[in-house]
């Protein structure tokens, strides 16, 4: 499956400033695997030691938070947009 990943500013230090990266992957986990082999150190910046997403990182597939799906096991379809977005507080 070919899909586009939106990289937020703080992580573009890995992608030489590129905002949209195309990857081949079937699950969110594979998206991160691919990004990490392309850009060593990428995974460690979004996942903790146990491999789960860090608390302040959200990943959305076509706008849906993967925490509402199957987290890193969530399957991704061809052409899906995967957005990695640091959490921000807000309110009201």
């Amino acid at each position, binding site marked *: 499956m070919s899909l586009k990943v939106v990289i*937020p500013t703080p992580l573009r230090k890995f992608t030489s400033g590129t905002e949209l990266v195309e990857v081949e992957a079937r699950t969110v986990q594979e998206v991160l695997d691919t990004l990490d082999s392309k850009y060593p150190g990428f995974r460690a910046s979004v996942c903790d030691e146990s491999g789960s997403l860090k*608390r302040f990182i959200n990943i959305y597939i076509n*706008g849906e938070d993967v925490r509402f799906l199957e987290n890193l096991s969530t399957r991704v379809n061809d052409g899906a947009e995967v957005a990695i977005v640091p959490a921000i*507080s*807000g309110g*009201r």
Partner: protein
Amino acid sequence: MSFVRGLKCRECGRAYPVELLAGCGDCFGPLEVNYDYDGIANVFTRDVIASRPKSIWKYRELLPLESEPVIGLSTGGTPLMRADRLGRKLGIENLYIKNDAVSSPTLSFKDRVTAVAINKALEFKLEAVGCASTGNLANSVAANAAAAGLPSFILIPDNLEQSKITATSIYGTRLIAVKGNYDAVNRLCSQIVDRYPFGFVNVNLRPFYAEGSKTMAYEIAEQLGWRAPDAMVVPMAGGSLIAKVHKGLKEFERIGLIKDTKRFRLYGAQASGCNPIIDAVKRGSRDIRPVKPNTIAKSLAIGNPADGYYAAGLIATSGGWAEDATDPEIVDGIQLLAETEGVFTETAGGVTVAVAQKLVQQGKIKPYDLTVLAITGNGLKTLDALRLAPPQVIEPKLAAFEDVLGGVYRVA
């Protein structure tokens, strides 16, 4: 003169200079403003504070501006009202209401945070400001941006109350309704500031913006005669206010303005239709499981509260607790506050009152606890949530009026 030392990541401790930044570049944790507290303690005394006019700026040493504020000069200084009639209904002998329903200029506590953020935007010489909002923040950013002469972009979920939409558009802002809930709006905003040189108050101005909430705690401590309450009930959306109330009181303690905060307990309030922080507290955890909001308390409808982790932790370590309120309980809470104290609050205030009632019933708040309820917004903003009986219509005749009276009162 400013006592700000810089920004510091709350998670990993990495230090940053004062700059436009949404979060830590290493771990994405939230940033806190760090002050020179020893320097502040030397000059910032009870007498100095008491001598200044009532507004959030009387605490300016503990706010992150480098220069004098130019907008929001009359924000803050809202009443701390003794609430004996409500207290009798709830079973609390020593009850107060912090009434930000009458906040200047837009009738919610958000005026405290936007006053700081918009002044900061002026210091950064930003071209435009904006926010993601469920309504109250939208009103306040639009008003203060107008006062500052700054263009503003305000993004809201497409299901907001009409009154909050009108009370935002009136200021000449660019109001944009986004298909989806607050969390979708929030995500879009973080992508916007990633690309454009705008200051979004709750995104890249957030470290400064959030500091404004501390002033609610400062005022309460001063208004109580320089002490912390025993218990405080605070409504939670993103969880920022409750965390900043805690920070504010701890700062006052550290500087020596109040004695100790050992007895102070934080109680969090959410709507049952959006209660991820309450859920975490009740599980004995800080980890937030995001939810999809479904509640009339739209100003609290944040399903993925990024400060939830801290809010849940602070509630637990303070010895407090957390409860939620259903939609009918929220409406009852609004009515109870109005009928006992003459204060008309919005749905978030209804949540606070309803939750306070539950906490007393559960024995979490004791009758003798000096308790403060944070009433954060005005009831005129959420009229849609209320369905009250229409007034009786009569002929303009004394007899018709007396039919309504039903003979209960004697003629004078």
